[in-house]
Structures are given as structure tokens and as C-alpha cells.
């Protein structure tokens, strides 16, 4: 049988039960294929230019920006868990920490990769560092995201080095221990950076004076969306981690984290989501009644164009905000695993919906009185190159799960415990 | 010895990199080309008393800069061979007689997106030619033209020193060099002040 021939057991941590290599490869194969298609599509965009996409002069941002914002928000779990564990000393969250780092790493590296295809002149993207426009939210985003990606790499390395084979190189072991000492610092730096770029991503739209649908008044140089984005990101981050872990548990058929961990995550998510929804309501009211009319845009204008009617606003605030907030916070509902996970999914969906509205509705709505309402459907190249990111994520995570002690107690020692 | 092995190997690597980076790389990056004729500014200054650059490199009355003088300018004196140099022979036989323009290689050629007005710098700002072109106008040899394989820019844009450290004002014609001079005379121009 193939498995006897094909084996990688010496790479798998001692005592860890892992499926046979062939089956693992079988699992990877479709994802690898998807990745290949995506890379090809991305290649087309880089070689022939962005005419390969369905974006246009009015829809200058499309699927890519929307999903970048989405996964960066969901990736917020990484820094936030780190923050909770190392700064607020919530040790009980430690079991999820490695997953958080890996997921964060995947989300951010994926987002940056897509951005490099999205810009028309990737070869010149570094100009932002050389001639930065300090007034631009995008500058802030670029700096913070690239720095934070570096931080995530540094956080990922120790996990990587805990691989059974790599651990055998003494110098690596030393290195890992040194790095490990650094992790709390990294967590602190990461938190700072993340707060800023999550915020700036919101600011990205909030500052658009020319797009009253997105334009928000704010506090000092930061429009309200700056803070809303931070809130929504840290609210959804933990939920997303929960979903990931639950999925992995389902696939592997193992319990990987202590039972009550989900509830804790859910609670954090829920409370923050609640705060977010409250803030969002206040912001929406101010925007509709003060900010927007003051620049000559009546609120009704934004909602006369189907499908972007008021229901979408309702969905964003109530269906995917208030409801999951309740479900996650209350002991009764949270105790129910299915409800808990559904709520978590809804929370993540809410964030995605919010990013979608800000990206797509902002561009679709007319500004000039003689503009027409526009729609846009992404081209297969756009969809493919983005699905590549998801494939890449699955592959990286699977490899990490197989060869790294993701759920082992994150102390440097190699323990035999792994869930059950 | 044993315990220094790492250090030595490391330094060997370092040294190799430095050698390649500072000595091999520049020679690979730039292609060397010779002017079609070895034109001598010095001789022209001495023999024919063409001391004022603008006698050949004229600024037209609409302000545009003629750059390299046209063939008839040369033909004015070189309608027939003067002296015995091979360059002289080529000039007359290959360019003047058939009436072809000489394909000069322009050391200080800027890319298409740059708009540099000699009129503004020479006539209004009263800059002398050598502030940017150094003493090439009196040199007694046509220097070798180096072109960057990747960007296609003349070496003079980057300047003779690879590190660009401690270079003289006339060494290098990168945007930063223009900016430096503009800053020195606090002259503020926007992007499109120098770009088109």
C-alpha cells in the first residue's frame, strides 16, 4: 500500500496522530489545482494589465479590494489574541494563539499578494516608502500592513522551528528560544500596528470628501470609520478563529482546544460586537442627519437604487450585528455549540457585508446629478486570483497543522498532549 | 582555527559579495559605446575659436534648445576634409557628403517624460553650461558613452560614482540632483514643472 512507501512520520511531532501522507496529498491536490489556476489568472493580469479584470474608471476598486478588506478584518484575530494573551494576560486563550498567528499570517500575506496584482505598477509600489504622502490613509495602511506582515513572520518562525526535524538543529533551537522571549514584544508592536492599519482601512473611505456616502466626520484627523473598523475587526477576529478551529476539529475529528475556549472567544466577540453596533448606530444617525446633508446629499439618495435599499443597512446593523452580538454574549445561547458557531459566522458575515457596502455601494452610487447608477461583475481572472489566496490559505494551514504543534501548549517543551 | 571557522567563512562570503557588488556589477550593468566620431571640443575651441557653446548648441528664438548641431552646421567648415584624422575622413565621407545627420550619443539625455528648458536655466537663471556639463565643453577627447542595460539611461544621469556619495554638483543628473539645486536656490516647481 502506498502509505508504507510514502511516509513523512519523522516530520510529524511525536505522539501526534496524523492521517497518511497519500490521503493528506489527496486533500491538498484540489487546493493546489485551484492555486495553480489563480496564479495563472494573476499572471494574465500582470502580463496584459488590468484590462483582464472587469473594473473600470467608475468601479476603480472591485472584488479584490473588498475581499482584501474582508480578510484583513478577519485576520485581526491574530493581533487581538496576542494582545489578550500577552498584554492582558488572558492565559486561557493560549491554545488558540498559534492558530491565530498562522491565520493572521495567511490573511495578511494573501491580502498583500492580491494588492500587488491590483495596483497597475507593482514595480513602483515601493515609491510609497520613498516618497510617502503622510496625509494619505493609504500610506498609513501600506506602512502598517507591511510592518505587521514582518511581525507576523517573526511570530510564525518560532512555531515553524518547533517542527520535529528542525528542532534537531541546535542553533535553530536556540534561535527559537530567543525569538520566543521576543514574542510578547512582537505582540505589543503588532497590536499597535494593527490598531492603526485596521483604522486606516476604515479611514480610507471615511476621508473621501468626494463620496458623501462614505465620507464621515470624525475625531481629529480620523473619520469615525477609523474607529468603527478597529471595533468591527477585533469583534469578528475571535469569531473567525472559532470558526477555523471548529472546522479543523470537524475535519480531523479531534477536539483541539478546551471546550470552554469557544465560549470565551464568543463572549469577547459578542461584547465587542455589541459595542460596535452601538457605535455604528450613532455614527449612521450623525452621518444621515448632519454630515451628508451638509454637503448637499439627502439621505434618501443612497437608498433609492436597488439592490442597495435600506434593507442592506438593516441587515448590516441588526441581522449581522445585534443578533449575533446577543447570541454570542448570553450564556444560554452561547452554551449551544451550533448557535454559537452560527452566531460567529454571522458576525464574520456582518464585517464582510460592511466592507462590501463601503467598497461597492460607495462606487456604485452616483455623485453628479446626471450620473447613472452602475453595477459591476468581476471577471473570472479576478475571482480565480482571489480563490488562489483561499487555496493558499488552506494549504499553508494544512501543512502547519500537520507538521507543527499548532494546538500543543505553546510552551517550548514538546508535550505528548494534543487535545485528547 | 576551528572556532574561528564560522567567522572566516562568513567574512569570505561578505568579501565576495562586496567585490561582485562594487566592481563586477557596474561593469555588467552599463554597456560602453563609442561616439560615431571622436569629436574634440578642445580642438574646435582652439583652432576655430568656437568658444561660446551656444554657437553650436543654440537656443532657438521660440526658446527650444537645438541640442546637437545639425549637419549643415558642421558642413559649414567641413564641406571638405580639414586635416588628416580618420574621424575627419569619416565625417566627410559618411555624413556630410551623403547629408546624413551624425547619430551622436547624448551623454546628458533625459527620458521622454522630462521637460528641461535650457532657455529658462541659461537665459533666465543665468547658469553657465559647466554647472551641469562640467568641463566637457573643453575636453580633448570624446568620452565613452555608457548606457544602462535596464533603464536605458546614460551613465551621466546616475553619475560616475556608483555610491553617489560626495559627488560634485555636476556629477549626476537624477531628479534628486535637480531638486538639490532647486532647493539651494529655493526655487519651487511642481512635478509638471519639469515633467511632461
Amino acid at each position: 500500500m502506498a502509505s508504507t512507501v510514502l511516509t513523512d512520520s519523522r516530520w510529524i511531532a511525536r505522539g501526534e496522530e496524523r492521517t497518511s501522507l497519500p490521503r493528506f496529498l489527496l486533500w491538498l491536490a484540489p487546493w493546489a489545482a485551484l492555486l495553480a489556476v489563480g496564479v495563472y489568472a494573476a499572471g494574465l493580469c500582470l502580463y496584459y494589465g488590468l484590462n483582464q479584470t472587469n473594473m473600470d474608471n467608475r468601479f476603480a476598486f472591485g472584488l479584490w479590494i473588498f475581499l482584501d478588506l474582508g480578510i484583513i478584518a478577519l485576520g485581526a484575530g491574530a493581533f487581538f489574541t496576542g494582545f489578550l494573551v500577552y498584554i492582558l494576560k488572558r492565559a486561557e486563550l493560549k491554545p488558540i494563539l498559534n492558530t491565530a498567528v498562522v491565520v493572521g499570517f495567511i490573511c495578511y500575506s494573501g491580502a498583500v499578494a492580491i494588492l500587488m496584482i491590483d495596483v497597475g505598477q507593482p514595480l513602483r509600489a515601493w515609491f510609497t516608502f520613498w516618497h510617502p504622502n503622510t496625509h494619505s490613509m493609504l500610506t498609513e495602511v501600506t506602512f502598517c500592513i507591511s510592518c505587521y506582515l514582518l511581525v507576523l513572520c517573526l511570530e510564525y518562525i518560532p512555531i515553524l522551528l518547533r517542527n520535529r526535524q528542525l528542532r534537531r538543529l541546535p542553533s535553530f533551537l536556540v534561535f527559537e528560544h530567543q525569538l520566543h522571549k521576543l514574542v510578547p514584544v512582537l505582540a505589543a508592536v503588532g497590536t499597535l500596528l494593527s490598531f492603526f492599519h485596521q483604522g486606516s482601512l476604515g479611514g480610507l473611505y471615511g476621508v473621501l470628501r468626494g463620496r458623501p456616502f462614505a465620507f464621515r466626520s470624525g475625531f481629529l484627523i480620523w473619520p469615525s470609520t477609523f474607529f468603527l473598523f478597529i471595533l468591527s475587526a477585533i469583534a469578528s477576529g475571535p469569531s473567525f478563529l472559532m470558526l477555523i478551529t471548529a472546522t479543523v476539529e470537524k475535519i480531523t475529528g479531534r477536539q483541539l482546544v478546551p471546550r470552554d475556549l469557544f465560549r470565551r472567544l464568543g463572549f469577547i466577540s459578542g461584547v465587542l460586537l455589541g459595542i460596535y453596533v452601538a457605535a455604528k448606530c450613532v455614527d449612521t444617525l450623525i452621518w444621515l442627519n448632519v454630515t451628508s446633508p451638509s454637503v448637499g446629499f439627502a439621505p434618501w439618495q443612497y437608498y433609492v437604487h436597488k439592490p442597495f435599499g435600506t434593507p442592506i443597512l438593516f441587515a448590516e446593523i441588526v441581522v449581522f450585528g445585534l443578533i449575533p452580538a446577543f447570541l454570542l454574549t448570553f450564556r444560554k445561547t452561547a452554551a449551544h455549540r451550533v448557535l454559537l458557531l452560527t452566531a460567529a459566522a454571522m458576525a464574520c458575515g456582518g464585517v464582510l457585508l460592511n466592507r462590501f457596502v463601503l467598497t461597492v455601494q460607495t462606487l456604485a452610487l452616483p455623485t453628479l446629478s446626471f450620473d447613472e447608477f452602475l453595477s459591476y461583475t468581476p471577471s473570472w481572472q479576478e475571482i480565480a486570483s482571489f480563490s488562489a489566496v483561499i487555496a493558499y490559505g488552506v494549504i499553508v494551514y494544512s501543512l502547519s497543522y500537520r507538521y507543527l504543534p499548532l494546538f500543543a501548549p505553546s510552551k517550548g517543551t514538546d508535550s505528548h498532549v494534543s487535545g485528547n | 582555527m576551528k572556532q574561528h571557522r564560522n567567522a572566516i567563512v562568513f567574512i569570505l562570503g561578505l568579501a565576495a559579495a562586496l567585490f561582485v557588488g562594487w566592481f563586477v556589477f557596474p561593469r555588467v550593468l552599463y554597456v560602453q559605446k563609442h561616439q560615431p566620431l571622436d569629436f574634440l571640443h578642445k580642438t574646435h575651441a582652439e583652432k576655430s575659436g568656437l568658444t561660446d557653446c551656444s554657437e553650436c548648441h543654440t537656443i532657438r528664438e521660440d526658446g527650444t534648445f537645438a541640442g546637437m548641431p545639425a549637419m549643415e552646421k558642421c558642413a559649414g567648415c567641413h564641406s571638405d576634409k580639414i586635416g588628416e584624422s580618420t574621424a575627419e575622413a569619416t565625417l566627410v565621407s559618411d555624413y556630410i557628403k551623403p547629408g546624413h545627420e551624425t547619430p551622436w550619443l547624448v551623454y546628458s539625455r533625459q527620458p521622454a517624460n522630462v521637460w528641461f528648458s535650457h532657455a529658462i536655466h541659461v537665459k533666465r537663471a543665468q547658469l553657465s553650461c559647466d554647472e551641469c556639463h562640467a568641463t566637457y565643453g573643453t575636453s580633448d577627447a570624446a568620452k565613452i558613452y555608457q548606457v544602462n542595460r535596464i533603464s536605458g539611461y546614460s551613465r551621466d544621469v546616475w553619475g560616475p560614482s556608483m555610491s553617489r556619495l560626495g559627488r560634485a554638483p555636476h556629477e549626476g543628473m537624477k531628479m534628486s540632483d535637480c531638486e538639490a539645486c532647486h532647493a539651494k536656490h529655493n526655487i519651487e516647481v511642481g512635478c509638471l514643472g519639469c515633467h511632461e
Partner: protein
Amino acid sequence: MSARYGMVIDIDRCTGCGSCMVACAAENNVPTLPKATARTGLTPMLVRRVSNGREGNARRESFIPILCMHCEHDTPCVKVCPQQAVEVDKATGIVMQMPQRCLGCRYCMTACPYHARYFNWWDPAWPAGMEKSLNPGVSVRMRGVVEKCNLCHSRLHAAMEKAAAAGKKEIDPADYVPACVEACPTGAIHFGNLADPNDPVSREARSPNAFRLLARIGTEPKVYYKSKEAWVRALAESNAGREPEVQHG
């Protein structure tokens, strides 16, 4: 010199012929894009057809040339560009787009309420030989960057150079006329220096019939429009004074 170049466009004179659009494209070496649509084309000057929304004999139509409005205050595109590829020129008030600096993130395009910025979705290309017909004053932009109206900056260059050669500091206004202004067969586009109160353009800009698109956003555009038709002036407001129900359908 510290000018504030601007325009007053008389809507009542615009017949929508499109001369300005073609002249602009020719002057600025804007390529013809065989695959482009009205949403992916390059039209730094774009004439748009507008109506009073009525039908039958009551219908009225006009044409509004849309170009970069050269916003003076809190210029949306300048503020958002991450690498200073856009700026408001101190000397002229022209909002300058620098394609060689641009990385093509298109953030400025989302920021512009007038949709006056265009992305080079394709490599510029011309049929064999046609590149000989390119205007020597303007460099061709490459694929993947944003471009827009720079108020025919190469013509300003020429004027400056001419002045310098003649030993003058100020340019002769007659030497600097953008291609669209020159091309308009009805003289609907008036160009001048808004900083000079005696310039006919600044006088027109103060006339009661003058208006600016989306002026309430507060970006102080330097392109004014003018019409004696109330319904045309109403177009300046985003919702053109219309009620929700009119918006439907």
C-alpha cells in the same frame, strides 16, 4: 507668477459636437483604445449629455463638458495619493497628475466626485507609423497608471520657454490656451486666471448664472459653468433638487 488657472464653460453655447474631446486627445497623445468602452476609455475631456428629465416637447437637453475641476481646497485626489503623484501646483493652481510616479492604486479615482480621472487599462498603441503623428510636447503614459487633464501643460511649458528666451518673467496669456478652449467652435469654453479679478474669466465666474458642480462638497473647483436655464444650474446639486420618487425608474 502665482496664477489660478480656471475655466468658465457656457453650457448654453455647447452644441455637444465633441471637438474639444478629439482636440484634447490629439494634443495629449491619448491613444485610441479599440477595446475600450464608455467606462474604460480615456477621455480627459468628456462631454456629457444631460436633460431636464421631462419627455416629449417639454424635454430640454444640454451638454456638459467634464474635465478635471482642479479643486483648490482639500483636493480629494491629492489628499489620498499615497506617493505624491498628484499635487496642486502652487504657481498655477493646476492639479498635476504625474504618471511616472503613479503606482496605479486608483484610490484617487474613487476619491474624485467628478469621475474626471482615467486609468490606463491597456498599453497605449497606434497602428504602424501613426506614432509619427504624436505631439512632441507630451510624453505617452504607460499602462497601469492614472491620468487626467493637466490643462495642456505642455502648452504652458512652451509659453514659459518662449518668455524665458525673450527675457521675460511672465508668460504672454495668448501663448497658453488649452487645446479644448482653442478647439471649441462656439467659444463656449473660456480660460483664464481666476486670481486676477480683472480677468474676464473671474468676472464671469462671479456672474449670477455661474455655478460649480457639487460646490457644496467644498473642494473649491476652478472649473465654473454658466447657464441661464434654471434646470441646468440645478444640475450642480447632487440630487438636482429632485424628489425621491423622480429618482425611481
